[in-house]
Each structure stands twice: as C-alpha cells, then as structure tokens.
C-alpha cells in the first residue's frame, strides 16, 4: 500500500512539476554586435519570413548608433495585436514616415510607423507578394485575382494600387499568373510573372503597365518563371528567372526598357539581388537535378559594363559556413554587405555583415528565414 501512495504522490509531483503559465508578450532580445557607426542611416529592419502555418513572421531592428541588434520587436511594439505580425513575410519597404510589411499568407500589408514599428493599420490583399511606391501610391503584386473555374482553376494575378494617405485600395490591374517582383521606370510599372502555380507550364513574361491609365499595355517574353526585378538608373531592368528547377537553370536577364529588348543574359543563378551604384550583388542557389545538389554563388555584375566582375564577393572564407544565402542588401554609405543565411528554414537564421572588401565584421542570430531588409534614415537606396 505504501508503494502505491508513493506512486500517487509522485504523480501529483509530476503534474505540479511544471504547470502552464500565462503566455507573455515577447520581450525583444538585444544583442551588442558591433562598434557604433554614425551616418545618416540610423538602422535597418530585417523581416524574417517564418514558415507557412507557423505565424512566425518577425521583425528585427539594427541600431547603427548603438551597434545593437534587437530581435523580434513587433509584439512588444504592438502588444494589443492578437497573433502578432503574422504568417510568412514577403517584402518590406519604407515610404515617407510609414513602413509597409507585405505578409503573404496573412493576406495583408501591415502598415507601421517607420521609426518604431508601431502599427497604423493594415491593407487586406490576399496572397500579396511585393511592393513599390510612386507619387503617393503603393503598388502591390498579388496572386489572388479572379479564378477561371473552366480552365483548371487558373488564377490570374494583379497589381493593387493603394493610396498611402488613406490605405485604401483604389484600383486593380490584372497581369500574368503569380506575379512577383515589381519595379517602376519612366512611368511604367514592370511586373515579373512567375506562373509558379502552373508547374510545369510556368509563365515567361513581364507585364508592362502604364502608370497613368493603370492598364497593362503588353506582356514581354523574357524567360521561364521570373521572380524579382531591379531597375537601375540607366534605363535597364535586371530580371531574375528561376528556371524550372530541372532542365532550365536560373538566369539573370538585362532588359533595356527604352529599346524594349533583352540586352544580355547571364548564366548565373539568382535567389536574390541588391543594387548599389554600379554593382549588382547576386546570391544564388542552383539546384542540379543530375547531381542532386545545390551550388551557391556570390557574384557581382557591373551594370555599366554588363559583365560579371566577381564570382565570390566574400573574401575571408565565411561562405563555407553559410548554408543558404537568402537575403541581401548593401549599405549605400558604408558599402557594407548585409547577407542573411536561412539555413534549414526551420531553425533561426544568421545575419552576416561584411565590409565592402567582403571581410566579415559581425554576425547575429535572426528569426526563421531572414529575408527582407529596409534601411531607416536618409540616403537610402531603396
């Protein structure tokens, strides 16, 4: 009998061993990573995507004047918002005093004050992808246009035009299937159509929209499964094609928007890219179906010469410990390279800061799938 009493006491103890506590608003972790730097750029935000269904899209902030990295600030800045920032971040940008975070599977663009990430409101756009601004309006790509139930439920994409003063959607313009990257050059909006839901029949065009009439003028054939765009100041659009992940490799295309023709293409895989001055920094993971492996590149294309001038901008060997380069941006003043490693996607990533020579200055743990950056301050590139 005594042994049984003991067992019951034991079981009681186990049940009391650790009980549920209240869920507490996450208090951001601050990490000192570098010596302070004083420029007109105060800092940058990093949007971590988080995996689908995990509701783990988080926002980190780096303060140059303190040399301090703060993880996961949104919940603390907005403690009254249920379920925080949301599920799968896909883009982030600042326009005026407002910051816009495109939260893909939460079907919204979160609008915050750029200085402290406190919430202003949200724009409901289902399956939203990328954002750009022009003369008081935000232009956001979305996969979720009308569904053609008579044609395999194909769903055309669109660009939403949002008044940044009222945060209301004022117009929509249909484009191709699953539109991703967006750029605005010479009063024209360019949209990369991916056709990602139409495997294996990907899209191969960019849509060209006249910004004043907000109608699609035409589609221009570029290459298979287009992803992101970068417009330079010389009238060229740098276009990334993902390929079909099998027989057609990922490539970079240079499109002359005035002559309306492809100027050149580069046999280089592009997962992400960042433009600074004459240099287009490219990170790419190329899947090889035959060898069943991924090769990674860290390249620089000189956009005036239109040549690959470096195939590895990391000079200190750090690339050996980077598993999955994912996001990139260049500090326009110091020329520091900020590069994120998404690792296995399911564990926290790492943010690396390299100086302009490609030597590592510091690195820090981020949220899951660190991906999209925006600088806070003046003289920023984006």
């Amino acid at each position, binding site marked *: 009998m005594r*042994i049984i009493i003991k067992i019951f006491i034991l079981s009681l103890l186990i049940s009391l061993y650790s009980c549920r*506590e209240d869920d507490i608003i996450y208090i951001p972790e601050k990490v000192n990573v570098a010596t302070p730097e004083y420029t007109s750029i105060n800092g940058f935000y990093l949007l971590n*995507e988080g*995996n689908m269904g995990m*509701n783990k899209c988080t926002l980190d902030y780096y303060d140059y004047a303190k040399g301090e990295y703060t993880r996961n600030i949104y919940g603390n800045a907005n403690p009254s918002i249920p379920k925080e920032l949301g599920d799968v971040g896909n883009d982030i940008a600042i326009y005026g005093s407002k910051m816009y975070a495109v939260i893909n599977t939460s079907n919204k663009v979160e609008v915050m004050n750029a200085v402290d990430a406190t919430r202003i409101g949200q724009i409901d756009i*289902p399956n939203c992808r990328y954002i750009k601004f022009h003369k008081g309006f935000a232009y956001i790509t979305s996969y979720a246009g009308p569904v053609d139930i008579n044609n395999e439920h194909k769903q055309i994409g669109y660009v939403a035009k949002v008044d940044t003063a009222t945060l209301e959607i004022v117009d929509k313009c249909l484009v191709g299937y699953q539109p991703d990257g967006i750029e605005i050059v010479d009063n024209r909006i360019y949209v990369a159509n991916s056709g990602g839901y139409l495997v294996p029949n990907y899209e191969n065009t960019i849509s060209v929209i006249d910004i004043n009439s907000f109608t699609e003028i035409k589609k221009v054939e570029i290459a298979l499964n287009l992803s992101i765009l970068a417009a330079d100041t010389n009238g060229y659009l740098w276009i990334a094609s993902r390929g079909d992940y099998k027989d057609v490799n990922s490539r970079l295309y240079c499109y002359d928007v005035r002559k309306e023709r492809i100027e050149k293409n580069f046999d280089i895989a592009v997962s992400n890219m960042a433009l600074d001055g004459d240099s287009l920094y490219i990170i790419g993971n190329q*899947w090889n179906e035959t060898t069943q492996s991924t090769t990674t590149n860290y390249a620089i294309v000189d956009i005036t010469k239109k040549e690959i001038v470096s195939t590895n901008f990391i000079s200190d060997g750090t690339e050996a410990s980077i598993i999955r380069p994912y996001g990139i941006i260049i500090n326009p003043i110091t020329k520091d390279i900020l590069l994120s490693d998404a690792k296995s996607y*399911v564990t926290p990533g790492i943010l690396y800061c390299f100086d302009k020579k490609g030597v590592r200055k510091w690195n820090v743990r981020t949220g899951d799938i660190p991906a999209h950056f925006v600088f806070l301050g003046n003289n920023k590139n984006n």
Partner: protein
Amino acid sequence: MARGRFLFFLIILCSFSLTAQSKLDSIQHLDEVKIVASKRPYATVIPAQTLQGKALESLNSHSVADAIRYFSGVQLKDYGGVGGVKTIDIRSMGSNHMGVFYDGIQLGNAQNGQIDLGKFSLDNIEGISLYNGQKSDIFQSAKDFGSAGTIYLNTRRPRFEGNKKHNLRAIFRTGSFGLINPSLLWEYKLSDNVNLSTSIEYTSATGKYKFRYKKNFSDGTLAWDTTATRLNGDIYALRAEIGVFGQINNGQWNIKAYYYDSEKGIPGAIVNNVWKSAQRQWDRNFFAQGSFRKKFSKVYDFKINAKYARDYMRYNNPDTTLMYIDNKFWQQELYISAVNKFNILPSWEANIAIDYQWNYLDATLSQFAYPTRNTILMAAATAYQWNGLKVQASVLGSFINDHSSTENSSGQRVEKNQTNNYFTPALFLSYQPFRLYDFSLRTFYKRIFRMPTFNDLFYTDMGNASLRPEYATQYNIGAYYSISLSESIIENFKITADAYYNLVDDKIIAVPKGTGQYRWMMMNIGKVKIKGIDVTASARFKLPCSVLLNANLNYTYQQALDYTDQDDNGDGGSYKGVIAYIPRHSGSLIIGGQYKNWELNYSFIYVGERYLSSANIIENREQPWYTHDISGAYSFRIKDLQLRLSLEVNNLFNQQYDVIRNYPMPGRNYKAILKIDI
C-alpha cells in the same frame, strides 16, 4: 445532421424488431466475456501494454488514437477536433516507424506511411496492445518483425452465451461538436463452429468549438485576449465491417471486409488575419483480408494471411488566397504471408515466415511517377525457454523492388527499377530469477528500417528517388513485478520499468532546395538519439462495500536530441536540441471505480514543455498541457435489454492549449453515450 438522425432511428428500429424476432432466453447476467485469461502457450518474451475490455470501454476516448495516448512512451500529434489528423509516435522514433495491425494483418499506406487511427472505431475493438520492438511471439508473419514499434488492434470475436444465436449491440453517442454517432454491431451464430459479425457506424459532427488565445504583459496585466470558433472541422464518416470467424480441428480461420467512407474539413493553422480554412479531404478505404491457422502436428503449426486493399483519397483546396489544389490518389495493396512454426523440443521453437506484398499508387499529379513496389520479406526466428530464461532471436530479410515511370523534359517516359536487400536482426531476452515471485528482468535489441514512402521518393518536385531507408536501432532493459494478494484490499499490483536508448539514423527529412521559396526535398540526413525511461504501474483494489477500484499510472521521461548537423551548434542552433514536439516528461493516470451498477472513471494526461523545432529557443517553446477527463456510467436492464448510459466531461478544467502550435484544441466538452446489448 438530418441524415444522421434518420440513420439513428433506423438503427433503433432495427434493433427493436430484431429483439422481437429472436426471443432471447432469459439470461440474467450478460457480462462482458473476459478474454484476459486465454493465455496462449507461446507467450511473448516481453508482454505488451494492453488496454482491453472494461478498461478500454470506460476511457473517454472517441477513437483508437485517443486510447493509445494512455500508453507509456507514446506521443500523439493532434491537430484538434473530431476529424482532425492524429498520428502516433512511439519512443520518439517518428510515426513512420510504427506498425499498426488490424486483426493480425498490417494496415498499409505506401503513399505517406501514415495510418489514420481515427478510421477505426472502439465500438468493435476489444483490445489494443502496444509492443516496443516487436511482438516477441515467434509464430507470426514476417511483417510482424518489420517495425520499430507495433500496435495491434483486435476486433471483437463473437461469443455466445448459452443457447444464444444472436448478439446485438447498439450504441449512440452525442455531445459537443455537434456529434451524432450511432453504431450497430450484430453477431450471429451460423453454426457451432462458424460465427458472423457485422458492424456499421456513422459519424457526423460539425466540429465547431470555441477556443481562446491570450497574452499578458510580464506584470500579469492583459495584453490581448481573443475567442473564436474553430471552423471547417466537420466530418461525415461511414464505416462498415463484416467478418466470418471459424473454428476447425486444431485451428481457426477468419475472413473480413472493411469499408470506410468520409468527407471532412481540414481545420488549418490559426495565424494572424486567418481564422478559418477551406481545405477538404475525402477518403474511401476498402480492404478484405483472411487468415487461416492450424496445428498440423505436434511439431508443425501453419498460418496463412492474405489481404487486398484499395484506398482513394482526394484533397481539395478551394481557398482562392492559396494555390488551388485538387489532387486524387488511388492506392492498391496485395499481401500474402505464410508462417511455419516448428516445435523442435517442448522448450525450443523455430519459425520461418515468407511475405509478399505489392503496392501501386496512381495520382492526378502532373509529372507523376506511378510507382510500384514489390516486397518480399523473409523472417527466421527461434525461441528457447530454459527454467526462468526466455530467449527469442530473429532476422528479417527484406527484398524490395521499386519501379517508377517518370516523364523527362522531352515528354518521354523513363522507366526506373531499383532493387535493394536488407537484413535486420532482433534479440529478446527475459529472465525470471525467483520461482515464488512474479518478477522478471527483460532486455531487447532491435535494428530495423522504414522504407521511404512513395511521397518521399516520387512526390512531384519534392520527392527524391535516391533515398535510402531510415534506420532505427533500439536497446532496452527493464523489469516487471506483479503481486496478487487474496486477503488484502489490494488484489493485484503490477509495475514495469524500462530504460531505453534509440538511435534513428539516415532519417528522412525535408530540406530546402534550389532557387525558389518553400521548395523542399527529402534527404537522408537526420540523426536522432533518444534516451528514455518508461514506467507503468497498475493496481486493483477491492474496497469495503463491494467497491472495486482500478488504477493505472504511466510515466515517460525522454531525451530525444537532434544530432543531424553538428555545425549548427551556435546560438539558437539545432545540434543536440530536443526534437520537435517531444516532451521530456509525460504521463497519464487512470482511476476507475465500480460500485454495483455504477461506474466512475477519471483520467489525466500530462505532456510537459516542448519545443516546436530543434532550435530550443524561447520563441519555440510550447507550454505543457494536461487534461482531466471524468465519466460516469450506470448499467441497468429493461426486460432482455442490457443498457448502459454514460456521461463524459472531457477537459474538465477547460484548459486552452495547443498540441501543435496554432492548432487550438477544444476546451471543456461533453458526451453522452447509450449502449444497448441484446
């Protein structure tokens, strides 16, 4: 709903009309026939954890999965609701390492390896047994040797009291989640040696329940608090079974057919700005199986098992904010097994078993590979008994051929054949040192693998045709003690304790791939080391005033650590982190009391703190959860009808918890059950 009610009335009507026809003899006591006693001569080296008879019936469980939660060493992944997915993981090796046997023949799913235990009803199951390693009883098919852990679901075999020719049982359940769940079991004595059993069950539920999420500031004041209704968790399911059971001289046989048809909503993750989902799933499962067993002579026993299964599954995502998906899958399985046991000496037996299995998967996916798998399994086993020592050794040879037909870029079909052979051993020992005490020590070693599923290998874009099997190696040492006291309040007391070490290597996990976002592929790179302790204790009390009390306690301590990537050992790294959703501490307690016609049952489940990924940082921490369930039952007679009415309150303290993050579980919920036996 209307359909469900109609069916219920129909069943009630049927049951009354049958009573009128059969005019049963006035049998005063129609107690549940005890099956515990039928101990077979070839008893296992290491006994199973078992739930059967009354103990099983009095648990507040809706499905087989709910009942299995009470076993030690088991973790249930539960996405919530009546029709929600429930998968079982034994000793942290992953659900694909678990074999589930239904009346002695394994349930298969070559497509994804997952057996949805929600498809099997407790209404016609009389026992559930869980074996770590394998059932250490050598007279079994090669497949019985083929999993790292095995669950046996044994359906009720018809038994007739006195001159009875019919048994009829009708059950009706209703309660929270809009549940309407009638079932009918009819058993008929065809002849002295041949019995028929049929069973039909209908389930319908809206699956709606309230859930609440809230967060506080660190000083305890409220930050946000939100309550919503779980939607798209509805289910409609029909299950029908028919079986014929026969006795022959020195043997027995049975054949049975099973059919299940369901449509259900898939309640998705609750994330910011998304509070409902629209995905739906349709399932149609059919199988027919038979088994024949005979002792041909003193030295030779023979058994043959055969099965044919056909499964259809359709998954539809009509949600326009996500990619439209409407995929259909058709699976077929053919299985035959011959088992030969030789009783060389009274204390020495040997077994040779040969199984053959064929699997085929067809799907509406583009660029699909239409895979076929031919498997031959050969098992050789021997068992030896000397005084208190029992030894069983076995080796399993697996000869597996996969065939696929993939489309290349120029649209031509490329046929691929891959054949592999594997040999895996197991050793089980038990020793009873004292003749007077029911005390034994036991140990086992087993190495086994699970094949990559068709999804792992061939799922369009994500599959990886060059995958190897995933291995699990187990070491276990433990002890068992049981005491029965006739003169004491405690009638019987039993305790078991086992310590184990498992290694899972070449674990098949999804890793990111290539240029695009959210593109994954399966690779053999995972490695997990698991150390654990399982303790079970049970006692039977005979208290004054004819009160009977049963108590069952299970406790599991586990340390399941991720050894996949030793370079990922920095800040927030996954190396040596506790793997996803495996708690260090977990346990359960069941106390059942009986007084005359009254029964009262209490059960408690505790699952400790977990992390949702091997990165054991605070953002990934999941709170412990624990639920208290209570039920009361009253049995009574109306003429020839034996009735039992029970009421259940589950999650008594209305705990708001997630088993899987963003999948809220139901709070306090109720159920009423009426059971009628004729």
